[in-house]
């Protein structure tokens, strides 16, 4: 039987506010345990929450970016359950009335087509603390620094049909939130966390199959592998006459498998109700306008602009806008270099190649955007050839110095004085009389290939500095 996969994602995005969603404690990552947990975060008797404006603005930015309705009135609710990393015994979240309503994003499929994925909702909530399971002589240690960190939970429609689509969607959301600057996107530190709801159904059937929820997917690679494993597992179960059990499953990256989380005997009964300590959040037009005013350009728009303004191919534009730092870098290169296409080539081939080889990210590149722009500019204005430029780039990478400085110091400036080039050409022709003879007697079709020999000789004699275009032209004239 042919099966169809149905996936929906829930993505928890930590927002980049300085302070927590309901308290004035810092959200900085990596502090000593419980040093950033204030009375409110610890749920002390008598404390009360007050909502952080920064969290609300970030949710509004996201909602606007995915063209969703921003709820003019949303409500915070308590989700009640006991767990040591949940100090109050409830999580403040949004339930019936979330701040961001239905929206959508577009993903690029492998076949080059674009697909629209629905976003059901996005709501604000507080993060929980962390349980540290290293052995404290039979105890678990609780660090509540993370408790109260603002989260935006982004829930997709079950529109995704493969692990690859799920990854493309997750990457798209990652791209949007980092472009907006509302999340640092750091997956190692847990700033961007994914859960997947996965089910399968026979192709052609309308009803969804029973789904399982996959947790602990903290990289795009794990997301893909976990879904692939889970889909196969579900198909196996169904094809051997069994039934999929609705449950939460944990992805084990080491074993590359999902396994049932031993959930307690109780079905979860979270007893949601409106939090009486918080009032309805009412958002006025003016608040939205003010928030959106400084909104950064989104990846889609930037990609289109790169195609139009810089004449880039769809592929190049997609690659260069993949992350905001990358697109910013590119535009800084162009601003100096002038030649947009050449800048794109140099960035994507030489710079990315070098970064890749060194295992570095763009943020820590030894060659700054301005420096790379300076180099590309010298190629564009014929000061140096592309080949010489590679030597200069290597030197820039090593020393961090500017292209012009290296060109001057090493005397790499291209020879463009035609009389100087002509003198070298004449020398070469005189030294290779036999080859000149052969060339002139050759089949005209073979001549272009034979010309390469002379070009090589001239370049060698000029130590690579002769302008190749001029050399070609002169040689053709003189031999012709």
């Amino acid at each position, binding site marked *: 039987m042919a099966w169809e996969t149905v996936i929906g994602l829930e993505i928890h995005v930590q927002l980049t506010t300085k*302070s927590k969603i309901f308290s004035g404690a810092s959200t900085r990552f990596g502090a000593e345990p419980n040093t950033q947990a204030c009375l409110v975060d610890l749920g002390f008797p008598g404390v009360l929450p007050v909502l952080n*404006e920064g969290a609300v603005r970030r949710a509004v930015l996201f909602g606007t970016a995915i063209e969703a309705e921003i709820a003019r009135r949303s409500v915070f609710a308590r989700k009640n359950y006991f767990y040591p990393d949940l100090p109050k015994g409830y999580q403040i979240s949004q339930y019936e009335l979330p701040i961001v309503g239905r929206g959508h994003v577009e993903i690029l499929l492998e076949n080059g087509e674009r697909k629209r994925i629905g976003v059901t909702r996005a709501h604000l909530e507080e993060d929980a603390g962390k349980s540290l399971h290293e052995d404290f002589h039979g105890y678990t240690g609780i660090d509540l620094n993370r408790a109260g960190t603002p989260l935006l939970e982004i829930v997709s429609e079950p529109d995704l049909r493969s692990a690859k689509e799920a990854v493309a969607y997750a990457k798209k959301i990652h791209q949007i939130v980092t472009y907006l600057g509302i999340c640092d996107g750091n997956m190692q530190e847990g700033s961007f966390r994914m859960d997947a709801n996965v089910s399968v159904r026979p192709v052609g059937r309308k009803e969804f199959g029973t789904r399982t929820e996959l947790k602990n997917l903290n990289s795009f690679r794990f997301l893909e592998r976990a879904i692939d494993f889970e889909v196969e597992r579900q198909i196996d179960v169904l094809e051997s006459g069994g039934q999929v059990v609705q449950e939460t499953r944990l992805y084990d990256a080491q074993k590359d498998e999902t396994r049932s989380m031993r959930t307690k005997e109780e079905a979860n009964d979270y007893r949601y109700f409106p939090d009486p300590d918080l009032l*309805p959040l009412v958002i006025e037009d003016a608040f939205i306008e003010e928030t959106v005013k400084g909104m950064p350009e989104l990846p889609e728009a930037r990609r289109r602009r790169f195609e139009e303004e810089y004449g880039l191919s769809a592929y190049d534009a997609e690659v260069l806008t993949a992350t905001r730092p990358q697109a910013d870098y590119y535009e800084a290169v162009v601003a100096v270099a002038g030649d947009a296409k050449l800048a794109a080539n140099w960035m994507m081939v030489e710079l990315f190649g070098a970064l890749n080889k060194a295992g570095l990210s763009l943020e820590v590149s030894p060659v700054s955007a301005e420096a790379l722009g300076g180099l590309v500019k010298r190629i564009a204005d014929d000061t140096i050839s592309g080949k010489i430029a590679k030597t200069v780039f290597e030197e820039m990478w090593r020393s961090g110095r500017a292209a012009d400085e290296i060109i001057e110091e090493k005397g790499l400036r291209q020879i463009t004085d035609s009389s100087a080039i002509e003198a070298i050409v004449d020398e070469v022709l005189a030294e290779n009389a036999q080859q000149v003879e052969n060339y002139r007697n050759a089949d005209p079709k073979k001549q272009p290939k034979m010309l390469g020999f002379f070009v090589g000789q001239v370049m060698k004699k000029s130590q690579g500095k002769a302008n190749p275009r001029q050399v070609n032209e002169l040689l053709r004239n003189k031999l012709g």
Partner: protein
Amino acid sequence: MSLQREDVEKIAHLARLAVPEEELEHLRGELAGILHLVEQMDELDTGDITPMAHPLEMTQRLRVDRVTEENHRDQYQAVAPLVENGLYLVPRVIE
């Protein structure tokens, strides 16, 4: 809706309250009595009434995103039953 013994056990578990076996029936009776009082509400037709969650028709005020809290861990943990290296300790949680 008559309250069963199993309901009481379920609620006690949800609320994380240990209830000794021998007290269940008595507790069931008390709770049923309270629910009986509560269910007098059913006499009232509240079909199209908007539920009232708050006495005042106010909206949520927003706090400026600023760090105002300092580290007072030692002071806050002075009242904690069991801490080590700045961590609160609970019986081992198995995931």
